[in-house]
């Protein structure tokens, strides 16, 4: 602990600005002045699409680390979050301090609108891969997860389980499937784009004939599986399948043979943040080794901070065949994806 702190302190003294070729501001550390400012504000609001079972404990860990700062977690599906922020900003309501979404495309829009505050910490500058952060320092990937498939062992025998997307079209799975919705979930929006690109919309048209139970957030299929309501989750946040499994729920995670949709979860400080100090502190802490370790230990999502090791017992990200994420395309196609999806699945 102490060693890392000293390191951060020393790094702050280096003329980092000299290395930076973009509009990104110089990298900062968590200074006593920042903590003081944050404590004066006393609160911070964190808009996120992460499941509450991870987001709330993370908020509590931050509160324990920095007593006197209360975190308000505003959790909803990323697409609804996007809508909420648009409505709030249009009505000049300033509440959001830090935003974190499972739809990376949102950050392209927000950056263009000028809503994001450039802010870079030393942890980001040194330990986050360049492709994981905005060159202008307005956002950075907080963690990566996958939209995996999964099945309930009590309801499907492992040898009968689907191995990939196309297997799901087998009539024997009709009425057994549960799936999230791209109109609400950023994970599913990103995944839908990748699957439609790889397999074509025809795949979804066939899938819709399988009497799929349609839920909203990507965090719900794992819960429906745990309850035994459906045998197979077509998609959903992989970390929640794993967390349920580690709790003893008879669930098997499937990484589709066609490739598993990869979901990055960028985070940014809002320019209009009502608590600018606390916003930076929360942001910096989440990206620090300690914050990242907390996320990894609790949920096993893949950390963006390269210094932090992935959770033992989970398959390494490099061992999984993933589909390519393309936020720029998602941003262009979001409306089309929602409309097409609603037409095919009727909701």
């Amino acid at each position: 602990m102490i060693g890392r702190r000293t390191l951060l302190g020393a790094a702050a003294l280096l003329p980092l600005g000299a290395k930076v070729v973009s509009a990104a501001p110089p990298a900062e550390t968590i200074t006593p002045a920042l903590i003081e400012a944050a404590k004066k504000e006393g609160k911070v609001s964190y808009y996120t699409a992460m499941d509450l079972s991870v987001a709330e404990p993370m908020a509590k860990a931050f509160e324990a680390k920095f007593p006197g700062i209360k975190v308000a977690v505003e959790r909803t599906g990323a697409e609804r979050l996007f809508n909420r922020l648009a409505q709030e900003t249009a009505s000049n309501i300033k509440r959001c301090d830090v935003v974190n979404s499972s739809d990376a495309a949102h950050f392209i829009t927000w950056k263009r609108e000028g809503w994001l505050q450039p802010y870079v910490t030393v942890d980001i500058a040194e330990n986050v891969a360049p492709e994981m952060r905005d060159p202008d320092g307005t956002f950075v990937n907080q963690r990566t997860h996958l939209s995996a498939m999964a099945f309930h062992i009590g309801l499907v025998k492992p040898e009968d389980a689907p191995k990939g997307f196309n297997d799901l079209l087998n009539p024997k799975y009709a009425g057994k499937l549960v799936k999230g919705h791209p109109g609400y979930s950023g994970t599913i929006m990103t995944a839908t784009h990748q699957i439609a690109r790889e397999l074509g919309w025809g795949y979804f048209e066939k899938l819709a004939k399988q009497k799929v139970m349609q839920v909203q957030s990507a965090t719900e299929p794992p819960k429906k599986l745990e309850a035994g309501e459906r045998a197979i989750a077509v998609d959903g946040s992989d970390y929640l399948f794993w967390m349920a499994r580690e709790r003893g729920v008879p669930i098997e995670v499937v990484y589709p043979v066609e490739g598993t949709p990869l979901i990055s979860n960028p985070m940014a400080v809002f320019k209009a943040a009502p608590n600018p100090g606390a916003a930076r502190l929360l942001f910096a802490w989440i990206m620090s080794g300690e914050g990242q370790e907390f996320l990894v230990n609790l949920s096993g999502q893949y950390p963006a901070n390269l210094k932090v090791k992935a959770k033992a017992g989970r398959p390494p990200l490099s061992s999984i065949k993933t589909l390519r994420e393309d936020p720029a395309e998602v941003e262009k196609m979001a409306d089309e994806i929602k409309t097409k999806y609603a037409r095919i699945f009727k909701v």
Partner: protein
Amino acid sequence: MPDLSRPILVAVTALLAVMIVLPMGWLIAYSLSDKQGAATLGNFVTLFTDPSFVDPLITTLIIAVSVSAICCIVAAPLGWLVARTDMPLRRVVRTLVMASLVTPPFVGAIAWEMLAAPNSGLLNQLWRSLAGMPSDEALFDIYSLTGLIFVIACYTFPYVFILVANALDRMPGELEDASSMLGARTWQTARRITVPLALPTLLAGALVAFLQALNLFGSPAILAIPAGFHTLTTRIWSLFQFPPKPELAAAASLPLLLLTILLLRGQALALGRRGYAVLGGKYGEPRLVRLGGWRLPAAALALLVLAMPLFLPYAALFNSAFSRVASRLVTLDTITLHNVRFTFLELSSTLPALKNTFLLATLSATLGAVLALLIAYIVARRAVTGHRVLAFLATAPLAIPGIVLGVGLFLAYTRPPLTLYGTLWILLIAFITIELPAAYQQLSSAFHAVHPELEEAGRMLGASRLRTLADITAPLLRSAVIATWCFVFVAVIRELSAAVILFTSETKVLSVLIFDLKESGDVGAIAVLSLTMVAITTVVVAVANRFGGSREAGRLHARAAG
């Protein structure tokens, strides 16, 4: 002290205009314009040609008609059993049916999900283990049109029941006595006398049920989306997803508005202007029909009916509140406070939402009761010319479905000069507007009981109108005012359909928080919050009943759609 009644009239009229006329004006204006604001009928063309609107429209009508029919079929015999027969437990049954109204419809829908989801539903699991069926077989599928109709009917038939039972209470016994004296058998009397007398009430009840089902948002939002279809209200709500399409939302709101106005006219016709089909004068207590050997089966049937909105859902809610997984029956070994801890200690939205809800409910109830009292007074005493306008404006919101009012207020107050969106004010306006008609009706009937002579005496002795109101009229109306206050309070706590359009992250209320948690499937926290909500409501209703408001409960609750 100058008489303030004139300025008050002007102020109240202006306030009502802000609350009702402005939002509805924007609603109509938006429905007739395109994205750029140019005049067009295109939204209505879309509404009646695009299958993504036509299907929900048809679905909604199917639901409303079915719910209405089921409610009458269930409520009429049950009302008769309770009001006109010697069925055992009839008082208990009556109280419990009323008590079932405490459940917000969306909470009922979530509870029925726990009971009758095809695989994880407790009832389906029970059936499978009893009948030895394999894991794919289900007795009930709540995620279906029939499932949705069933759940809506569960929480709608009490309105019809209350209307019917009250009407049967007041129906003169002499006519039936005459019939039996002339030699008609019990069933003949029922068919020839009782049923025809009760028919207008039943028709009115059918319309109430139809309206309720037509404008309900919560239950369809919870059950229809997993089933893969929309109703008109959930479709309107979905239009607020990004990118929002307020023009289409406005256009889609108008059919609901028009249909509601039409049906309310129909209901007024069915009931006559007096409210109930009472014949006036003093009649004898109706004679109770002896059920004989049918007494016990009748009571069993009544309890079975009550299991649907009451016993089963609450058992399911308690089960999931204290269980790690809602689909498993909690035992002494598995009972856990995990959900309670999570809801009250970890979930950071709980306390702000509770605070907002209490604040809004208290303010709406207080301001709503005061406003209703003022209007009722001005109208009842014909204090100033123009009082009819007031009476009209105060009852007009009855015709505005919650979600439609939400859309209207959203359109009217996301712009200058009054940018109220994002504040608690817009929710306050919504809640007061929604509850005003019921509050006004209750207080206006209370005013008729206070003789004007008492007030005239006060005025003659030199008191101003306001002074008279405060010192003479108000004390006499105390119990009616308290009952009104409580019912507005309760109705606000459970309101979802307007709040879901108008809330922002800072102004979240309990019902919206539950709805948000539903999106991510956090059933345990939902169960804890729902039970908290119902506990608060029950306490307040109990207080209201102490002050003798129970008779009006049905009428008041008729507006409290989730």
